[in-house]
């Protein structure tokens, strides 16, 4: 079983790397490469799913308790969420943002032992309570990563449209309106997941009598940033460039929070 986990790392890694390279190539010269890229994403994600199944079967408790294991799960969630849109042609360009990031993070998780067979000791996260806590927070962060990708794509396309780039229509991409709306909707889904994850964590903290630490402060700050995003987007009527910058700024907070949160 352990060997199987190691064997599954390779197709997952190869799929993600191939997708990342193909998306970069497609960005330079739009054409057939996006089709190869999407197959790379699918194959890589299926291999990683199998890898996670093997890890889960081998572990006695929650198998992604280490920070590297959490990173492995996080990459799987991000790519899985991307696949929901990535399969649709206009959104494939989002892969240009998501897949290189996923490939790099997966390599980091693997080199740190989070994608191998030595990760299945169940560790300290062996109860359902914490599984929900970590799972919900990671799912929320996967959503925020995608939202940042969508916001980045919005700003990139806006620059091309304003610069009157002659090839702007040759690159298949979603409309600005679609990118703007999807960024908002993704955060609208991810924030409740983060809220629930934090609530579960705080409840656990209350019962265990633990104290408030820096990790929690960053997590709450992230929550506040995205809550502000939703208020400005849906109540104050902010649109376009401003909300894209806001989503990216909030994501910078996620990036700061991600390392300690997955470090547990």
């Amino acid at each position, binding site marked *: 079983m352990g060997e199987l986990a190691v064997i599954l790392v390779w197709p997952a890694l190869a799929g993600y790397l191939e997708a990342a390279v193909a998306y970069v190539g497609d960005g330079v010269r*739009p*054409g057939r490469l996006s089709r190869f890229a999407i197959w790379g994403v699918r194959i890589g994600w299926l291999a990683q799913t199998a890898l996670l199944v093997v890890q889960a079967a081998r572990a006695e408790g929650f198998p992604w308790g280490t920070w590297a294991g959490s990173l492995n799960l996080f990459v799987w969630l991000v790519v899985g969420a991307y696949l929901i849109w990535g399969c649709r042609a206009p959104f494939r360009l989002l892969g240009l943002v998501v897949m290189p990031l996923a490939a790099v993070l997966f390599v980091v998780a693997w080199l740190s032992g989070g994608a191998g067979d030595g990760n299945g000791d169940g560790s300290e996260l062996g109860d359902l309570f914490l599984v929900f806590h970590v799972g919900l927070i990671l799912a929320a962060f996967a959503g925020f990563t995608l939202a940042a990708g969508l916001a980045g794509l919005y700003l990139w*396309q806006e620059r091309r*449209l*304003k610069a*009157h780039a*002659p*090839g*702007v*229509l*040759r690159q*298949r*991409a*979603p*409309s*600005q*309106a*679609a990118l703007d709306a999807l960024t908002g909707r993704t955060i609208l889904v991810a924030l409740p997941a983060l809220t629930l994850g934090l609530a579960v964590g705080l409840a656990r903290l209350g019962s265990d009598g633990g104290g408030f630490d820096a990790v929690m402060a960053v997590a709450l700050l992230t929550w506040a940033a995205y809550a502000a995003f939703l208020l400005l987007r849906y109540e104050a*009527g*902010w*649109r*376009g*460039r*401003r909300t894209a910058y806001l989503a990216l700024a909030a994501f910078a907070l996620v990036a700061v929070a991600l390392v300690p949160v997955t470090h547990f």
Partner: protein
Amino acid sequence: MHLVLVGTSHHRAPVELREQLYVTAPENPELVRRLAGDEGEAVALSTCNRTELYVVDDDPEAAQERAFAELAALSGLSESEIAPSLYTLADEAAAMHLFRVAASLDSMIPGEAQILGQVRGAYETAKEAGTAGGIVHRLFRQALRVGRRVRSETAIGENPASISSAAAELAERVFGTLEGRRILVLGAGKMSDLATVNLISRGVESVFVANRSVERAEKLARRFGGRAAGLDAVETELEDVDIVVASTGARGHVLSAEQVERAMRKRKGRPIFFVDIAVPRDVDPAVNDIEGCYLYDVDDLDRVVEESVAGRREEAVRAEAIVAEEAEGFRAWQLSLDVVPAIASLRARAESIRTTELERAEGRLNTLSPSERRAVESLTAQIVNKLLHAPTVRMKQAAAAADGVLYADAVRHLFDLDERDSSARQPGE
């Protein structure tokens, strides 16, 4: 049977000649009936860029002569006068040409969408006129498939090839669908008319026309079911509209950056797309720097179209590969027609032996239950099919390699076949 194509297109004939050769819809059925004669097949494809006559006949020279005569009659010229403007292709080359036409590779702008519908229309007319037989059915169905494949497997038709369609596609890149969008038209000239028609065809809901002469604005607005006013109403309208098409004849800017900025403050970040096709320009270029504003003038749109057409040409290389693959398929099918009668005879003979032997064994089979009898029928049919499968495939393969006639003769000789053994099978069945 041979396929012959005689025709002309924008590559060979000036528009004056193409006009004369144009076959109108009411003329088409009679023309193809004359071309097909008693036993042939024919299709006439006539568009503003081409008139092509596809004739299937045992005698290709006779078919060619009939087509020449018809085209000469249409043009009012003698055959020798019209001959330099015509091209003649036969069999595989004719099929490949039709596939290129259906794939829009022979069009003025590669990737244009109308031609596939025109090919379908010509085929439908031939069917209704009773001049579509086995070869025409196969040829035109395959041509339509080539057209669909090229459009779905390449990006040849995805980018705009005119300024008005480029403007509409750029607007779609900003707003997604244009359904329900509002448009402000500045000026009531021909250019704004064209751009507006394109936008309306994509779902734009309401049109507001502003012009120095309110009377002309009203005339244009009536055409689109919209409203009209003078240019002084523009700033107020800017607060509500999504797209602005400007093409007045004014010498200075009709819309300043300050006016747009004031309107944008009230729009709460909702974007606005400006198409300025006027020369001199109507919209201050600084408008493009305002957040949420996208401004394209006629040069910007020209560059987008140029790039787009260049992209279509790149995609055309991939489309040619699809055409070549399909043409090879058609060639193999056409060659296989040489062995079809022999295969049909062989199968008919085998079936006849099977049923005769079953009838002979009728007395012994009487004791079987209905289900057992069906099993025997099925078993014998399967034996016949399995025995004949390999020779059938081999004969078709040999036909594709041009040895079909040899094999067909050998099979007829070995199995003592007569063409009467086969039922009257049509090519293409």
